[in-house]
């Protein structure tokens, strides 16, 4: 099953990359605010069902993909097993 993990800087954590992107977008004439820059991890996971896949990816996030002190994560599962 394909999974996408979205990793974001936690609310309250200063994100200078997001600020730089926001300034650049303003420079291009867009009216934007609240830009934050995170990461996307796409992966394929073998599991019997969606619950099993989600449980595995949760563990990946806790152990490696996100640092819980500074990052939040969101898991999206796509397609059939």
């Amino acid at each position, binding site marked *: 099953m394909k999974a996408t993990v979205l990793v974001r800087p936690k609310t309250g954590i200063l994100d*200078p990359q997001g600020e730089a992107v926001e300034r650049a977008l303003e420079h291009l004439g867009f009216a934007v605010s609240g830009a934050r820059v995170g990461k996307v991890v796409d992966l394929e996971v073998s599991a019997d069902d969606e619950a099993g896949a989600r449980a595995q990816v949760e563990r990946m996030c806790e152990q*490696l993909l996100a640092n819980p002190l*500074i990052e939040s994560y969101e898991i999206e599962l796509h397609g059939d097993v």
Partner: protein
Amino acid sequence: MAMSRPQPRIGVVTYPGSQDDRDALWALGALDAEAVPVWHEERELPSLDAVVLPGGFSYGDYLRCGAIARFSPATAAVCAFADQGGLVLGICNGFQVLCEAGLLPGALLRNESLRFVCRDVPVRVERSDTPFTTRCDAGQTLVIPVKHGDGRYVPPTDLDPAQIVFRYRDNPNGSVDDIAGVCNETGNVLGLMPHPEHAVDPLLGSADGALILVSLVEAARDRALASV
């Protein structure tokens, strides 16, 4: 001298991408330690009185700085060594590895300026009662170089202020509360972003870093003597 002074054995771990391991080995040797190279694949440490995790870009710093190095066999051995009270010093990338491994609280993020900083910075010693700072005075300012792109320290909300060992006097990276270095609760593990191993001789612009490394060498020597 009545007794011969044994040289303490201090290991320096080399990960793929470590850069400052040779400088750390050289500096420790120059400061009267037996510096022992430790390869990242070693599952057990040789007999050591202290360990240094050096600066660099371990495993390319992929994902997050130090995130992959945390899983190397040598890091597991260093964690076991620290759990038994062993002295561990993490410098720059080594500090990042210790945070990712959970030996130290907090995390290190991209510099607020988004720029790599490489310059001498004044650093205030907050505590002189750790094994890494006995040769310093509390309140003393050391001039030591930093060179990093990801040095903005973010502490956990419950960090005990007593764990802050060094603060920047001129914050180069946006670290919360100007924190430049922290120790664990028991004081046997220290991480800092400035590079003491690059400041051990006036020829290098400053010898202030030697105060930290000599403190470590002497603490390690005490342990070597105690174990004889």
